[in-house]
């Protein structure tokens, strides 16, 4: 879930000169190539997720363990400081309320990183045998005009927060350990920071094309290794 601007720094604009110079055929329209990508199921639009938390005084223990378990052993954990804004596009169509949630995330510690626009779909908890939550997710790197764009599009800012913490990588898995802060009034994150809890939020997630359920098992095994420090579980927050 924590796909901060930093976590996936994809610069949107790439020069096509190398790609195109030798290609004499007509380039496919972007729509066509997207459709073919959808059909061949290579777009990572499913997120496998486990969540948990750790009390502040034990976070060092957890970080130490993660440093040992994860791939970024040599350079240590990467820190991030992201600001997330959650928008929704609502309307009433013939009595049916329609809501389309969108999240914008940006790195506060790397101002030149692109913003990250994110759509997160309905959570699927599945039965007991499924080790993780699965939800559809579309991640799009975008320019800084996204906030104004969404506001003018008709979106309403539901809530916003900042997440500051550490990010680890283990194969395809991403582990974030972060402190969630409420943003003070106004649009200036960094001021009037208010912690909402004495714990760090711990999330283990993988973005994969649909059908890659084997990765969920890997995640379960990894989560097992963090016990009893953190219990990473499927949490249906809508039921809480």
């Amino acid at each position, binding site marked *: 879930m924590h796909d901060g601007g930093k976590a996936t720094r994809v610069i949107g604009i790439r020069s096509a000169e190398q790609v195109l110079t030798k290609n004499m055929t007509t380039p496919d329209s972007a729509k066509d190539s997207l459709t073919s990508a959808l059909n061949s199921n290579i777009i990572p639009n499913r997120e496998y997720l486990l969540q948990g938390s750790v*009390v502040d005084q*034990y976070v060092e223990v957890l970080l130490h363990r993660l440093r040992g378990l994860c791939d970024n052993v040599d350079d240590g954990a990467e820190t991030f400081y992201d600001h997330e804004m959650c928008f929704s596009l609502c309307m009433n169509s013939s009595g049916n309320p329609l809501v389309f949630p969108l999240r914008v995330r940006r790195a506060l510690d790397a101002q030149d990183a692109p913003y990250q626009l994110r759509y997160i*779909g*309905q959570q699927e908890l599945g039965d007991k045998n499924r080790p993780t939550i699965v939800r559809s997710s579309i991640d799009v790197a975008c320019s800084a005009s996204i906030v104004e764009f969404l506001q003018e599009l008709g979106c309403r800012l539901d809530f*916003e*927060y900042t997440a500051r913490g550490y990010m680890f990588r283990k194969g395809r898995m991403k582990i974030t350990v972060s402190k969630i802060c409420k943003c003070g009034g106004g649009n200036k994150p960094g001021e009037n920071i208010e912690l*909402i809890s004495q714990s760090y*939020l711990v999330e283990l997630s993988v973005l994969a094309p649909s059908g890659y359920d084997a990765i969920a098992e890997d995640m379960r095994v990894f989560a097992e290794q963090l016990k009893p420090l953190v219990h990473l579980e499927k949490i249906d927050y809508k039921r809480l």
Partner: protein
Amino acid sequence: MQQREEKQLESALDSIIQRVNDLKTSIAAMIYKVENEYETLNWPTFLDNFALLSGHLTSLSKILSHDKCPVLRNLTVLPLMLSPERDEQLAQLTEHRVTTFAHDLVPDYLRTKLEPLAENKMMQLEHKAATVAYENAQKQVAAYQKVVTHIWDIVSKAREEWDVESSARGNAQQHSSVSDTHLLVTAVGMGKGLKPVPNANGQPGQPAGSMMVAPQGRPGSASGQGQIPPATQTMTMNKAPSAIKTNIKSATQIHPYGR
């Protein structure tokens, strides 16, 4: 009176013989194992055998120190007849270990003192002890005691630490709190506790908003769970069967902020 004593002696001897036989068989079994199963024998079973032996030894010494056991020390065994001839009965009794009850074997078998070698050693030690001056001995004893208590301290300290550690490991709840997890997850997922104070102009379609806002500060887990937001109710009611395919649709149906 004498008869009773005799009976007692008999029964005591019987039980002693039984114990000794037990001990013998288990030693034999162990020797057999060592000789024949040395390839498959593992350390734990070997230790088990030792435990068996020591059990037998303890029970034997228990019987010997029992109240009802007559004081064997006061009894004497008197060899009435020695003969150099082979005694079949004796051979059978001793599993063909001792075939004759002759004068060259009897002193060894009926000996009540320690073995000559051991006896010598004991003598030497006693002699040495006798020559040590009293003060010196006292000093040595004190030093020895000091060392022992020191080690005892170390051991008990380590034990204490282990106890604390294992008890700390026992309650994993200390590391993470379920209520905090839920608080964080709902905050990140639905903005619970993160929403700004509802704006005065009150956009239409946000009537539930003000009720959704959790109390300021850090809401305790009790208050957070006790207060069931109305939207959550509708959400659980509307929680459509999993047949819903499109995400948009399902999201809109259960989204708490809908009208």
